[in-house]
Structure formats: C-alpha cells, structure tokens
C-alpha cells in the first residue's frame, strides 16, 4: 500500500495502446497477480540466480516486468539498478541488443558513477560505488575493458553487490536479440562473450540475480547455449508467462472501470469516468481469443480498448458508457493492428501538412522504411531488428519520403504512438554510442511482414500483367496502324473501315500507356481488363479479374484516397481549430 506522498496518481490514459505499462501504471495491470507472486517467489528463492522469464509474442512480458514484478520485488527488499539517480522503481532494463555485455557495462558504469546515499539510524551514509569503476579509467576506457570481458564484469558486479544492502537484480530485456541480431562473426563473438559471462556469474555466489526476459520461441536455443557454456544448472530457473485466459482478459479490460479501490490509488472509475455496457468486456475478450491473432492478444486488446476509449471519450468530468455499437463501429478486433499503424502514419502525414493526394503513397513509403526493422527468422517467426538512424535515413531517402526523417522518427517513437523504440547501442569497434531504432512491438513486425507479402503478391501480378499489357497494347497499336495504312490506299468502301483501324490503334495506345504509368494502369485495368480478356477469349482470366477481391486490390488506391481525403479533412479542421501552441511546437521540430 502506498503512502499519500508516494502515490503518483492514476496514469493519464487507461489503456496503453502499443506502449508497455511502466511502474506508474502498476494499478492498471490486471490479471497477472498470480504470475507476479509466482515469479517473485521463484526469484526470491536463494538458490535462484538466473531466471529466464519467457512467453510468447504479445503476452505482455515487458508490462509484466515493469508494472508487476519489479514494483512487487522492490517492496520485498530487492534493488534494481536505477536510472537517472532515482532510488525507487525506475529499473534499468538492459536491452539485450546484439551486444548485451556492452549495454550491461554501460548501465553499470552510469549507475556506479553516482554516490549512493542511505539513511541509517545514525545519520546519512554515502557509499562510494564510483571507486569500483574509477580504477578502470574513464567511461570509454571502462567500456573498452568491460564491454567484452565477462570476468571483469562479473568482478565488478561482485564488488557492487558487496557494497549495496539489497539484492541487486539485473534485467536483460529482449534476451532473444542476443541470438537473432547480427548473424555475423562479430555477432558470434558478442554472443559467446555473453554466455561466457553467464557461466562466470553462475560460478560465483554473491548477492545478485539476473533476470533474462525472452520470447518462448527462443527459449530452447537460449537454454542450449546456456548448456554449451556449462552454466551451473542449479542456478537457473525458468518461468513461463502464459497467455491470458478469457477471464484474465476481461479483468484487464475492466480494470480502469473498476469501482473499488486498487492498491490504495482509489477507484479507477472515479478517475476515468467511463464504463462498458454489460457483457461487452466478455465479448471483446471472447472475440480476441476466437480470432487466434498472430502477434498475441494483448497488443490487440490494448489497441482496441485504447481506440474505443479515445473515440467515445467525453468532456472531462462527464461519465459515459462504451456500448456494443461503439465496438461494432470500430470494426471488431480483426485488423486493428494494421489500422493502428495506418492511423499513426496518416496522422504523421497530416501533422506534417502533406496534401491529401500524397498521403497514401507516403504511408506506403514509410511502411517500406519500417519494413527494414521487421526481421523474418528461419523458423518463420518475425522479430524486430535494431537499425541505426543512418541506415533508416538512407532507406527513407531511397523511398523518397516527403516527411523529414527526424520529424518522422520523433512521431513514430513518441510515447503516444510507440511504433518505434529508440535504442542507443555502443559500437564494438569504435566504442561510440549510436542512435538506433527497433520496432515498438514485435506484433508490428508481423503486420509489416504481412503487408509486405500482400503487396509483393499484388505487385508481382500487376507487373506481369502490365508487361503483357504493354506488349498487347503495342501490338494492337501496330495492328490498328497497319490496318489503317492498308485500308487507306484501297479506297472505296474499304475507306469506311478506316475508323475501326484507328479505334484499334487508339485502344492499343491506351493499353500501352497504361502499362507505363501506375495510376492510369490501375484505373484502366480495373475498368477494361476483364472485358478485354473476354474479347480475347480468355474467359477464365476474365472471370478472375472480375472477381471482387482482385478488383478490390486494384481499386485499393483510389478508394483509399477517398477515405483518406475524408479523414484528412476532418482532422485538418480539428487541427485548425486547435490552439496555436501545436503549430509552434511543430515549427520547433527539427527537420532533416
């Protein structure tokens, strides 16, 4: 239970969308109480020194750690390496990347560079942790030494553990990255060094625990590496964070509408003022589970609930009920991740005042850029890659993106959108920190991959047809012209057939040109191709082309344009009516 002074209050948003829950969101985390206690018990057991916390994509590992397990463990007397000099709650998650040891060294150096003050009954005491790192020289020199030296890092951890009263816990998040990123020799070296570190750590007894969070798909590979490196099996335990059941999903949906007190924060309903129509949370939960959504149910649940909340939100202080109709209008649970990505990118275009007509193409271009971060693994899974800002800038330039790179990155990596996550990685060779990005959630990778696959399929069909169209159009033009040339000298009544030849020539020209210009092609193709095929006697092909799904794909662009235009107009008028502060802040944004 928190004291009045410690209570940070309810978070601004009741649902987090694609963003994970942080410590400040702890009262909103529901349905994981048993997992928190179970996992904490396992970690609290003295002989557990390394805990592998694994779960499938989208089961909510990051939120579970940040808003569930860590606050619980801190209350129980554990200590996490904090960020920004804060002694409480803000745990440092060492993002694995392809070089976790370097990230660990960096985090430890920054932590140990500060004095650690503690209030004892006989006055304030200062523990000078800096002495432990100072002997290794400057930050750069330390990173040079410790960044790829498992023994040195273990020794340093030992020294820090002996100076701190509480049990230190290091969290290595996205542990699978050590296996999936940088499949080169350089990556192999970093990988080996990380497992060597685990081995060296497991041979010691000092008061520190390591928690590695990773995806279940990589658990076997990770364990295999652990065994290869002879990490003491007695020290390692694992905890499977299962997918939420229907009942747990309902609790997660209903938590912000609960009328009772939650963890001493008071009633969430009193704060957020909304509720669901009876049976709606159950319906959403059962829909989510019945669709067998790739990428996990939790991200979709968050996106659906966040969008429902945002769409139905009333003026502050006025309560409202989210009805079944609101849910129906949203379009159910399927396709929400795609729609969310589409919305974020469209918003970005609108904020950057792109003409409506350019928005669909710009959205596609940024999707292409983001695809750089979706990495398909040999086993068919999709993970997020980590790319430097420079690599992404080159990709954006290659795609000829209209929106400035920095503005786009700022928008996509913002707390509200969370499409991207910024990761600063230290290069092994230069020891310089490089700004990198990864996808905000693996589920976005899946969306992008599906989009790429669909687009590739469509482009393949379209390209083949366009090529044929060019040949056919050319041939028809030639036939028309030849017919005209042949008919003209004949004179008499043959001359009357001359317009027919001209018609064929012009019709052919139309098709020929349609084969060159994408926009024309899509429109003409959609309108005339089935008929053309029918005339040519290719009835099956004509039927296929007149099939609605194929036509839909072909007509996607004009239709999308109309939709975007409508949406754009609505948003533009909303933007115009908003305060000038928004415009000022937009002007202040850096433009590459």
């Amino acid at each position, binding site marked *: 239970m928190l004291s009045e002074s410690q209570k940070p209050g309810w978070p601004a948003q009741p649902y987090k969308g694609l963003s994970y829950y942080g410590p400040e969101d702890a009262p909103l985390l529901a349905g994981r109480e*048993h997992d928190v*206690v*179970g996992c*904490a*018990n*396992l*970690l*609290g*057991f*003295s*002989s557990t020194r390394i805990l592998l916390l694994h779960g499938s994509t989208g089961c909510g590992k990051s939120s579970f750690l940040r808003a569930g397990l860590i606050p619980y463990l801190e209350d*129980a*007397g*554990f200590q996490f390496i904090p960020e920004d000099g804060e002694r409480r709650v803000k745990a440092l998650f060492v993002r694995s990347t392809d070089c976790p040891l370097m990230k660990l060294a960096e985090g430890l150096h920054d932590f140990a560079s500060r004095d650690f003050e*503690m*209030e*004892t*009954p*006989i006055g304030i*005491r200062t*523990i000078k942790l800096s002495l432990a790192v100072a002997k290794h020289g400057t930050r750069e020199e330390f990173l040079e030494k410790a960044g790829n030296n498992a023994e040195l890092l273990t020794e340093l951890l*030992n020294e820090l*553990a*002996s*100076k*701190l*009263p*509480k*049990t230190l816990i290091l969290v290595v998040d996205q542990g699978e990255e050590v296996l999936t990123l940088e499949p080169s020799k350089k990556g192999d070296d970093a990988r080996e060094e990380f497992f060597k570190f685990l081995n060296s750590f497991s041979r*010691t*007894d*000092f*008061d520190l625990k390591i928690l590695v969070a990773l995806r279940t798909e990589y658990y076997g590979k990770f364990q295999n590496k652990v065994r290869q490196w002879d990490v003491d099996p007695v020290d390692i335990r694992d905890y499977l964070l299962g997918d939420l059941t229907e009942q747990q999903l309902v609790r997660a949906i209903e938590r912000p509408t609960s009328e009772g007190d939650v963890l001493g924060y008071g009633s969430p309903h009193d704060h957020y003022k909304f509720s669901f129509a009876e049976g709606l949370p159950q319906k959403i939960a059962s829909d989510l589970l019945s669709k067998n959504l790739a990428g996990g149910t939790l991200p979709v649940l968050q996106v659906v609930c966040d969008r429902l909340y945002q769409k139905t939100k009333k003026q502050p202080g006025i309560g409202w009920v989210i009805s079944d109709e609101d849910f129906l209008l949203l379009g159910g649970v399927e396709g929400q991740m795609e729609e969310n990505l589409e919305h974020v990118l469209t918003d970005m275009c609108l904020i950057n005042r792109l003409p409506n007509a350019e928005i669909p193409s710009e959205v596609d271009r940024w999707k292409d850029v983001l695809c750089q971060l979706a990495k398909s693994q040999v086993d068919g899974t999709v993970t997020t890659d980590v790319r430097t800002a420079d690599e992404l800038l080159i990709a954006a330039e290659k795609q000829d993106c209209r929106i400035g790179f920095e503005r786009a990155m700022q928008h996509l990596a913002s707390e509200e959108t969370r499409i991207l996550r910024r990761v600063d990685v230290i290069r092994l060779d230069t020891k310089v920190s490089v700004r990198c990005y990864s996808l905000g959630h693996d589920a976005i990778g899946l969306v992008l991959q599906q989009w790429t696959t669909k687009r590739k399929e469509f482009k393949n069909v379209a390209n083949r047809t366009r090529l044929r169209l060019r040949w056919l159009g050319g041939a028809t033009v030639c036939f028309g012209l030849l017919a005209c040339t042949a008919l003209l000298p004949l004179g008499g009544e043959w001359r009357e057939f001359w317009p027919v030849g001209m018609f064929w020539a012009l019709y052919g020209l139309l098709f020929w040109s349609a084969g060159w210009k994408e926009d024309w092609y899509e429109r003409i193709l959609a309108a005339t191709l089935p008929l053309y095929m029918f005339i040519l006697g290719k009835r099956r092909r004509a039927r296929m082309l007149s099939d609605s799904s194929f036509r839909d794909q072909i007509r996607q662009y004009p239709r999308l344009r109309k939709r975007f235009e409508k949406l754009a107009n609505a948003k533009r008028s909303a933007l115009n009516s908003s305060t000038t502060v928004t415009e000022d802040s937009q002007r202040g944004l850096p433009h590459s």
Partner: protein
Amino acid sequence: MTDLSDRDFIRVKIALHDSVTLKVAWSGKSWEFPPYLIDLGVVSEVSQRVRAALSHLVKESMRGGAARSGALIHSLAQAGFDLYGALFLSQIGSEISGDEIRLWLQRQEGKLFWMSFSVDNRVHIPWGLVYDTDPAQLSGEPDDTTIEHYQNFWCLKHALSTMYSRMLPFGLQEHVSQENLRVLAAVNRAAFETALDVLSEPDRAIWETVQSRFWNPKYSTRELFDFWKSSGGDVHLLYFYCHANGNTIALGDDDELTMAKYKLNIRRNGLGQHEASCLVFLNGCSTAVGDPSGGFLEAAGAPGFSGFIGTETEVPNVFALRFGLAFLYYFCCKGQSILAIMDRLRRQHWPLSLAYSTYCYPLLAVLPSEMPALEFEENFSLTQLGTGVM
C-alpha cells in the same frame, strides 16, 4: 506478542557473498545500514557449539531432569553470546563496521523489535539462540534455571522469525477457516504409540480434541504422497512426527524419506504448486540443522510452502509429542499465529523448548472459532521427557 504494532521492525538480510563469506544487511521500515561481510566459517563453527550446548542440555535433562540444568543453560547462553559476537564480526573493507550496528542495537535497550531474518537457504544458523549480553553476570548455578534470567535469548527477547525465501507465498493474505483447514500428519507409528501411552489426562483431552477434528495420520511415505496427491496437493499443514536428522526422516524401520526422495516426489506429483501455502512442522531430531545439500530447509522454503518449524538438536519423544500436540491445538483449534504460539510454548515449556525454531512466515494463522478452552498447565520440560530421542 500477537500485537506487533508496538514493535519496531528490523530486517536482517543474510546472503552468501562467496563460499566463505556472508553479507549482512540491517534495515528498518525507513532506514538501512550499509552491508558488512562476516566469515561464514566462524559463524558456522560457533553455531555448531550452540547446537552442541543445546544437545547437551537435552541429553542431560533426559538423564537427570531439566530442573537442575542451570549450568547447561548458562553454557548455551555463553555459546549464544559467541554467536552474537560472530554476527557482528565484520571483515576489513566492509562498508560499515558490524560494531557500529551492534552499539546502535545496544542503545535500543528496552525497545521491542519484530526481527525478521531473511536468510540464504545454504546458511543454517540458529538465530533465535543468539544471546546478546555477557552471561558471565549470571550465576550459572545448576538451580538457576529461571527463564527471567535468560530473557536475552533473541527468540525470547524479540518477535523473531527466519525465512529462507524472501517472498510471501500464495494465500497468506487470507487466513484459512477451521472448516477448510487441511492437515496431513506423517507419523512413525512405533514412536508415536510409545509416546502416546505416557500422556497425562489433561494432555489426553487435548489429544482427543485434535484427533477428532484434524488428525489424519499416514504411517508410510507411500501413503503420505498418495493422500497428498489425491487431495490435489492442497494441504495447509504437513505435520511430521518421526525419527529424523537434517536430511532424512524415517516413518518406519525400512521407510526412510531422504531429501532427494522428498524433492522428487514433490516434483513428480506436482505438489507445492498450489495456491494454499503449506506449513511444515518437522517434529523429529535436528530437522533445522540442514546440510550442504540444503536439507529440509530448502524444500520447505520452496514455492508452495510457507516455511517450516524444526528442531535444532535431538528432542525426547514424549516431550516432542506433547509439544507438537500443544502446537496443533493452538494453531488449528485456537487460531493463534505461529509467532504467538511459539512464544507461548517457549516460555511455558522452558528450557527444552529452545530446541524448536521457526523458519516460516510468523503471522500465519487459522481463523479462530468456538472451541473448548483447554490448558497445558505443566511444563513439559519438567515432567517425563521420554524414553529416547526422535
């Protein structure tokens, strides 16, 4: 003792630093001291002496009665005082000297503490037998067995508990009702029947109360695990009354349950994974002593268990039966917390009650209900202790 609100909370965290060093950290609700390192070898050796002194006390009491065991209690206090010294004997290079904390603690004389030891399960020290004043001031005469003279044993002075797991297990937030309480007893039939014959009339009345409501004994390991499994693993109290040492308990002449066998059975039958946290009372000899492989301490600190009550040395069979019976009565029938029960029993059945230590969540209790008020008026230490040790 049940009201802890008047006591200041102190947590003493003792973790292994390396194979020969312990890290000790003292903290309260709003303060903490930097940690210091102590020598595991020294602490282990002193705690062996403590247990040896306790063993001597028990054996001599069996031979000649506890009424004239003042000198032996004095020796135990002396060993406990050495353990106190070892606890604060910090190594050079520690962030704070152990003496600074010891002096601070001495200045708190008169204050009541709820002292919670949070200990690595590879460290088996009888923290309750720490004695914090030099016993040289006491006479040490054989007749001087008065408990008031030995109030400086930490198990008497403070509300002391030791936990091997840092976390509170499942289900501790809500007290279980008597109707839902499930007790499973594993008993060595021969030892049990021998001791049962010696019970006095008042004891028998209590025995019958416990027997009628909660007694469901199993006389072999097979029966024990079969029943445990069939109950869905949902047992609140697992009570053993059998011959034992640190890592083996014997329910029969040919029926020994080793630590390894116990762990395997727990794992194989999926026990200890349930929401009800199970308290284990190992009423046999030296069950809290542990061994390098962890012993029962480790098993009873695992997820699904809320810890255990064990013995620091050998215990006489009749004394053990009566002590266990009294515990069952106060816990199951009267709804008192472990902390309150153990404090009461330690004082009432002094000095052999020192053989029992608690390594569990101290406030664990069953919801009280209307039960006949029965009292154990005798001091079990001063009557017939038994025909042998457990």
